[in-house]
């Protein structure tokens, strides 16, 4: 049997940013938190795929508020536009908004995402199952965010901010 493999770097207890090389994957385990600094340095012309795998029990109780990715561990007021399409228990709907951060999921979220970091084009796309609110469990949502800034450097992949105390694992693979 043949399997494909990334070289794993465990950043669970990292205290400073680590620059992932192409072919490496960062692994981060987290428990009972609302803020998760990824501690991953990023550079111009890099590309990543990432999996956020929650371990919170499936539930209808909680909030459907945003799961955010803050590039460079901060917010950029009015610079990011996002759009998503979703189906929950009640509706099939969509939105198109401006935001200070990347919107990658809602409530508790099981997320696959793709991250492009080029100075002239920065994009985060995700497909997520959201759960943990009365209309969720499951919700299917597809999201795309463009950071409409073609000059600033994205040097730290950033911090994930959850709307509720969240546990799980995240894998970030550098493909380019």
């Amino acid at each position: 049997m043949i399997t494909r493999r990334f070289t794993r770097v465990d950043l669970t207890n990292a205290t400073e940013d680590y620059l992932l090389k192409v072919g490496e994957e960062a692994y981060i385990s987290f428990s009972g938190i609302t803020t998760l600094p990824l501690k991953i340095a990023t550079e111009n012309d890099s590309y990543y795929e990432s999996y956020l795998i929650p371990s919170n029990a499936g539930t209808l109780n909680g909030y459907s508020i945003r799961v955010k990715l803050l590039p460079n561990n901060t917010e950029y007021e009015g610079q990011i536009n996002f759009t998503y399409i979703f189906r929950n228990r009640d509706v099939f709907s969509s939105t198109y908004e401006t935001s200070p951060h990347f919107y990658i999921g809602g409530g508790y979220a099981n997320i696959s995402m793709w991250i492009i970091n080029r100075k002239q084009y920065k994009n985060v796309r995700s497909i997520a199952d959201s759960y943990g609110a009365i209309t969720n469990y499951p919700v299917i949502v597809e999201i795309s965010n463009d950071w409409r800034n073609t000059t600033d450097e994205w040097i730290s992949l950033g911090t994930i901010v959850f709307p509720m105390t969240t546990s799980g694992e995240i894998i970030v693979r550098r493909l380019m």
Partner: protein
Amino acid sequence: MDPVAVAMLANLSVDLKKLNENVTQLNFPTIDLSSATTDYLLQPYFTAVINFSNATEVPLHIAIPADSYYELHIIPSDTGRTSGATDSPIFLYPNNTTYTDAFWVAEYWRNSDGLASAYTNISAFKIGQAFSAIVAWITNRTQYKNVRAITDVYGISTGWPTISPKSTDWRDTTTPWTSLGTIVFPQNSSGTIIVFRLR
């Protein structure tokens, strides 16, 4: 030496602890096909990388057998904006050609104008529009050939971003798909293409 063999020697990583379990782990042997002039047969768990600049057609130069499966990424380097692109599809031409009305695409999208969808008869796989960041999954079985994609569209007044998932089925259950094909853009485009063979 054959570039496939070079890549194998350079990147093959055998975990000796796993040998008894008959598991061989590969650290993504990578072939740069940016300057290829003939098709290479990408082996399972091999990766092809193609850089392109100001191109409207990018031949992938990847030979594909029946019963193979791929993950494809297009990482554009065209500057983000809401103008300058032609609002027309990005296609994958299998076998580097079109097959008149042999494909159907189901798609929906959300841009600044609203939510919409379509189900259309076309002549190649549709994977994007205008300028696009694309992740796609490609199934090549003679009896079932499909390309699904999740795309961000930009470069047009209603984009930057647009989210646009889509699925195209090639409704031909007899024609062999032997060359992954050519990516055709509606205007000069630049960026990087990564193709993983998963099966």
